């Protein structure tokens, strides 16, 4: 379960990409709910990387479908870096 602070920060980062204006939840999916194409996902990933000062490897992305999954991955990477 992702850290609440991490989740909140990711909600903030996703908000500018939420063009459909749907209510963001932990289980909101990037492709289906937010309708983000791969290029937009790339921009979002860059924002997340810079906000948390981490690297979110391209290899991980296929497994990260929801906001919560991304938050979990961010927490894991931050913990590994410490």
């Amino acid at each position, binding site marked *: 379960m992702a850290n609440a602070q991490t989740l909140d920060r990711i909600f903030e980062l996703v908000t500018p990409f939420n063009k459909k204006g749907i209510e963001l939840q932990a289980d909101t999916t990037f492709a289906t709910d937010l309708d983000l*194409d*791969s*290029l937009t996902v*790339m921009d979002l*990933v*860059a924002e997340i*990387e*810079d906000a948390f*000062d*981490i*690297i979110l*490897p*391209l*290899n991980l992305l296929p497994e990260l479908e929801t906001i919560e999954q991304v938050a979990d991955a961010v927490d894991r990477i931050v913990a590994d870096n410490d």
Partner: protein
Amino acid sequence: MDLFDKFDPLIAQKSSLPFEKADPFKVVMEKVLSETVAIIDGRETILAGTNNYMGMTFNEEAIAAAKEALDNYGTGTTGSRVLNGTYSGHKGLEKTIADFYGMDHCMVFSTGYQANLGMISTLAGVDDYVIIDADSHASIYDGCAMGNATIVRFKHNDIESMEKRLKRLPEGVGKLVVVESLYSMLGDAAPLKELLETAKKYGCTTLVDEAHSMGFCGEKGRGLCEELGVEHLADFIVGTFSKSVGTVGGYCVSNHPKFDVLRLVCRPYMFTASLPPSVVASATAAIKALERSGNRRAHLWENARRLHSGLKAAGFTLATETATSPIIAVCLPDPLIATKFWEKLLLNGVYVNMALPPATPAGYNLMRVSVCAQHTTEQIDEITRRFIATAEELGLNVKAA
């Protein structure tokens, strides 16, 4: 469950494009009259989307060499380079390319795609990192996917974005930075000097793909690294024969002392048939000709600048502010207009490449023109005129687009 069901969205998307008399996926060159003119659907058509930048497909020396190789060696090698597929021509071609670049080693692959696939997947292992530009060609992405390294992307041509990510990498790991010198869709040039200097500052090995710059950038046509004087910062340079060289195949050159071990570990080199001797012979002749083609290079750049300024003056929106390459990408407002424009332009006798999202960076809808050194000035002006006529026929106000 039909395995093809997953392709239904793509089939639906393709079917929704309103082509009436021509379809970019069904263009057939019935007869190729020259480097710049072909018969398509019975009409004489100016070829302005072939990547044949230096017009080497009809180079007399390349054709003569290919014919001689056909007579002497037959139509193919029927084998991999590591088995029966290495002929004297293959070794001669590798020496020609190594000499062209002034480097110690060269490995020739059966396509440019396989050159990137092989180099990236082999060089970077499970504990290593590959750092790539987000707009990289599919062959770079596929090379990353085929290997076991961790893949990190930075924003297109953004030095700061690259440096931020290099700073975050663990210490003591292997790091391979892969960049293209000219990007094929928009024709924009990379800030290679700054990118390579930054990569070196962080101890990275560097690979530069010169597929779309070899032949016409630099005094000898070696590419953008030569033009910018940064060849010493590129540990590996990859290129292709299917653009300026005018045939098919790919290569990698390097000064790395252990380079030749790649012939024993690089799967896209080992497990595929080697190039036919005729292709090898024409590539060898074409590269030698390219080296001394200063006038042709100058004319290519004149053509690119003339087309860029002509289309810009007509009001078209272009992907680059100036002609940074022979790729002149014209931006159209939406996929529907792009589709109609491409079809009408072809019916008006000009063949260009249509490129739509998601295949394009930043979601551009492009008419991608690639200029050839063998285009005459009159042909360049004719391409511009037919672009303008096509826009008028479609009622497209390009100045407002």
